[in-house]
């Protein structure tokens, strides 16, 4: 069995599961945010049930339109807050203590290797970086799990990706996943698990792995999983709030496809509008003038991402025609970045540094684009109108390319700074 199949089997009390099989499985954690939870709570309340399954295994995180951008979003968050109080939800995070859900939950040791997690947010697949099986669902599935603690699944097939070769300078998890999506398309892993393996992934930091698992959904994937190793254990041991279990794929595990990727051929990637599959080497798009740069999001808002950007921005100024917006993903990341002097670097360079929020990634607030404007962003989607007006454009890149582009005023290779 693959790691994904093993986790699913363990959570439905079976020795073995096979792709295509339907199972009902017990969940370790369920989560929703200020966009998806209000719908789920409305549904939950319609049922007349007045008890949640387990208040210690539910996370409600206001992170999308927070700090509230308008009265309507304030009402949405109020629904979460009141529900969390009423049912004594353990992992409700108030503004100021909340971070972007997919960084906050692993950072706080709330999701762990071997877990089975559903979240009413498509980027729930992020926790695959720790060797968990986690996947996005709608509000109704979340509402049902609020009551039962269970979800049904069709056991997915798995595509094995083998990354080999030496990583080039300025190449990170973001570049590998953009390259991979470019190769297989935005529906290349539809309904399937992407299992990320190979000698190169051992070299990747845990944060680069989070970025890759995070974007599995951009290829249609149900999950994006790495086998835990020493780096995983180092990350979770100092954070864990409970025990966890490590699963690994068997040598004879069956895959629907095996795709080998020589990373030595990959240079920093940029996905041009309007799909994440439109990835190209940065060299091919250098010089495109931009209006805004966003560094942050559940994809690239970790301390390591900010450090990479700061290395380029140190002693430099953001181009006079560009707004640079930097958003640490969690309060802890913000604090650590302050201690390390990274926030100083950003402010000295002329960036706006924001409290944690998903804000601009989905065109919510904190950096919405006007008609015709172009942005380089370390986020995950460059769909039409994603960051603002329907004629605006988003170019997806890693934090080094984003920082270099902010200095140049145009899409730039980090080496050009």
């Amino acid at each position, binding site marked *: 069995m693959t790691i994904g199949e093993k986790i699913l089997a363990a959570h439905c009390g079976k020795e073995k599961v096979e792709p295509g099989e339907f199972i009902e499985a017990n969940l370790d954690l369920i989560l929703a945010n200020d966009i998806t939870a209000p719908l789920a709570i409305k549904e939950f309340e319609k049922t007349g049930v007045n008890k949640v399954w387990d208040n210690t295994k539910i996370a409600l995180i206001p992170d999308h339109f927070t700090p509230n951008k308008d009265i309507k979003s304030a009402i949405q968050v109020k629904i979460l807050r009141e529900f969390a109080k009423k049912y004594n939800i353990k992992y409700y995070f108030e503004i100021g203590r909340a971070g972007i859900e997919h960084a906050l939950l692993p950072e706080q040791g709330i999701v762990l290797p071997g877990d089975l997690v559903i979240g009413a*947010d498509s980027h729930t697949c992020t926790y695959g970086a720790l060797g968990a099986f986690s996947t996005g669902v709608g509000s109704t*599935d979340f509402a049902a799990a609020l009551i039962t603690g269970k979800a049904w699944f069709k056991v997915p097939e798995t595509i094995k990706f083998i990354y080999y070769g030496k990583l080039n300078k300025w190449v990170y998890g973001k570049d590998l996943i953009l390259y991979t999506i470019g190769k297989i398309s935005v529906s290349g892993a539809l309904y399937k698990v992407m299992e990320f393996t190979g000698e190169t992934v051992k070299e990747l930091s845990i944060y680069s792995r989070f970025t890759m698992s995070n974007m599995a959904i951009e290829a249609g994937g149900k999950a994006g999983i790495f086998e835990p190793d020493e780096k995983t254990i180092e990350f979770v041991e100092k954070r864990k709030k409970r025990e966890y279990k490590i699963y690994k794929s068997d040598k004879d595990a069956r895959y629907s496809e095996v795709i080998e990727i020589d990373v030595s051929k990959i240079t920093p990637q940029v996905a041009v509008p309007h799909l994440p599959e439109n990835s190209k080497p940065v060299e091919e798009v250098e010089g495109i003038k931009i209006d805004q740069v966003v560094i942050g999001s559940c994809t690239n808002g970790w301390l390591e991402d900010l450090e990479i950007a700061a290395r380029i921005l140190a002693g430099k100024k953001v181009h006079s025609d560009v707004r640079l917006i930097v958003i640490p993903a969690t309060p802890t990341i913000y604090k650590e970045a302050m201690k390390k002097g990274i926030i100083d670097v950003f402010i000295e360079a002329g960036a706006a540094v924001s409290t944690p929020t998903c804000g601009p990634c989905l065109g919510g607030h904190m950096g919405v684009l006007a008609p015709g404007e172009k942005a380089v962003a370390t986020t995950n*989607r460059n769909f*039409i109108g994603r960051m603002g007006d329907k004629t605006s454009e988003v170019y997806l890149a890693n934090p080094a390319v984003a920082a270099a582009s902010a200095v140049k005023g145009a899409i730039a290779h980090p080496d050009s700074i």
Partner: protein
Amino acid sequence: MIFKGKVWKFGDNIDTDIIIPARYLNTTELKELATHCMEPLIEDFSKKVNKGDIIVAGKNFGCGSSREHAPLAIKSAGISCIIAESFARIFFRNSINMGLPVVELADASKYFNQNDEVEINLTDGIIVNLTRNEKYKIKPFPKFLQNIINSGGLLNYSLNKRKPK
């Protein structure tokens, strides 16, 4: 279970930010969601749709976010059914859960033009393009799926099932 209407044709990879841009997700009001449905591609889509109209699309319809607001916006705009060559996983499940029938048909884009009249029979698994006078076979919707659609979604279906007869 039969749906009949005019075709609204879309391409591949219609994402959830097209279906309902995220900036409007600060509400769960159905009428308001409908007002902004497909806004980046078609202004006032919901006003132009006649109740019962049908969407025909290419591959990977509904890719992107897990927002249930997406099928809700389409349904509230008056669309009765979506035919696509394939659907994104989360959107597919959300649509059924919201009581919006979604049907996979290989090469669907080739079989329909904008404004064609279409009849979909989910019980028998037959789609008829009345304009071209052509028939296509699909997998029929099993009874429980039809019941979910008729109940207006999974939750109402579950509640109805619980009620004593």
